């Protein structure tokens, strides 16, 4: 197990990079996923179709394929995802601003893929709001947007929070794939580098990698349990 101590900096660096990737992707997924969910329930049919098509495509494609299209399809289309080089954000997440675009590609792929699941989690939350709420809001003259903002979404979020948490936990685990599409130095990539290039024994290295992911996912899971228990009490 000495490899964990000898290469602590590698594990910590890998953890930090994976963490950054997950934070950015989670933000992206929540924003895009909410938008798609709103599209799916909107009264305008073409928007509903787009939302449904989005969820169908991304939910049913393997993440490897989505990653592949981000890493090799976007450059073929002439895009290096430079729109993600937001000045303020880049100073915190320094990987965003470097010339090699693969970190940005990974964020895009992970965010778009997870957004499909976020959309469905939120939609399930919206379905849990009793229809009378929306009808009453409409009856007092609220527009569709106001209805969503003040009546439906605040209640939907509450019942969507646990499924959303599961979606984000799945996303953190999925982020391991980024190491295979050009993101150098994340947790999974670091593990592979330690075992194959440097010849460290496999099992302790991957125990270290697992610890890295567990540090991110277990607290999130515990937090969700607490939220759920609180809600259960409140509902009684």
């Amino acid at each position, binding site marked *: 197990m000495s490899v964990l101590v000898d290469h602590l900096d590698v594990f910590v*660096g890998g953890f930090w*990079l994976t963490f950054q990737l997950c934070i950015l992707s989670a933000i992206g997924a929540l924003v895009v996923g909410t938008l798609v969910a709103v599209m799916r329930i909107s009264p305008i049919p073409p928007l509903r179709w787009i939302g449904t098509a989005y969820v169908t495509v991304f939910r049913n494609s393997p993440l490897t394929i989505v990653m592949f299209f981000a*890493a*090799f399809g976007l*450059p*073929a289309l002439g895009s*290096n995802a430079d729109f993600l080089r937001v000045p303020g954000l880049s100073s915190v997440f320094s*990987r965003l601003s*470097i*010339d*090699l*675009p*693969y*970190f940005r590609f990974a964020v895009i792929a992970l965010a778009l893929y997870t957004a499909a699941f976020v959309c469905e989690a939120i939609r399930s939350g919206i379905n849990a709001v009793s229809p009378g709420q929306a009808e009453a809001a409409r009856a007092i003259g609220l527009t569709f947007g106001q209805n969503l903002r003040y009546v439906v979404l605040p209640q939907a979020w509450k019942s969507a929070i646990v499924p959303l948490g599961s979606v984000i936990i799945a996303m953190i685990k999925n982020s391991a794939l980024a*190491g*295979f*599409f*050009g*993101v*150098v*130095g994340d947790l999974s*990539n670091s593990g*592979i*580098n330690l*075992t*194959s*290039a*440097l*010849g460290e024994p*496999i099992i302790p290295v991957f125990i270290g990698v697992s610890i890295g992911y567990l540090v991110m996912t277990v607290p999130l899971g515990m937090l969700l349990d607490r939220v759920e228990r609180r809600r259960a009490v409140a509902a009684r």
Partner: protein
Amino acid sequence: MRITRVAAVAAVAALALTVAACGGDGGDGDDTGSGSKTFEAGSTMERLNKAQKIIVGTKFDQPGFGLKGLDNKPAGFDVEIGKIIADELGIAADKVEYIEAPSAVREEVLEQGKADIVVATYTINDKRKERIDFAGPYYIAGQHIMVRSDDSSITGPDSFKAGDKKVCSVQGSTPGDNIKKYLANPASPGAQLVLFDGYQKCVDALTNKQVDAVTTDNVILLGYVAKSEGKFKLTGEKFTEEPYGIGVKKGDTAFREFVNATLEKIYTDGRYAKAWQDTAGKFDSTVPQGPAVNRY
């Protein structure tokens, strides 16, 4: 009906060829068979000879050295070396069993006895010697840099020190690790180095201009240059020495010595040159000098 007949004829022809091929092999010296070679009792050589079977760990994705084709059999220089060693043990080429030994698990397959030898573009180094033993080297590869043909701004690994050139290699590989010290900031290579799980992705990234260079052992790059129809070229000189060895189980000195002696024998009797010409020689026609084996 007609199709069946054609298939039948083809099958007969194939059978005839196979038989002819076997006959040819026999003439070359395979007819010594199992019984005629004797080895020291209790040695690995004796065990393998008695079992009439050897398991060779090799790569299945390395053109020129070990590549599994559509016929489901790996082919390449490493595979030929494996066959020659089997032959010296009195084992026929069709009794050699291959298992895939990608870079990450090469030590494991030897330690766990899943392979008797590993011939898999396996660079000899001290770290690996702690877990297994190496016979050889049988070939000295070297790390090289491949760029787009129209690019003359990269002349060698030092061109990456300025920090504006990007390079691609394969994760978990020795070349990927080697190139780090030539980068502007070796401690965080992410700004200049990208690693994929296969070289083809690097080549795609080079074509798409996401990276400016691909680096790994010369033999691998030569394969891509040969296939690229003038799109890529090698630049500068080889800047490392990668002595490829044959992995054997740790502590099996007698077996290691046997493989070493086999290598020295084939350097002079033409089998080494023939193995090269039939395989990696298609990318690099200069037959290498068999390097002196290292009896550490």
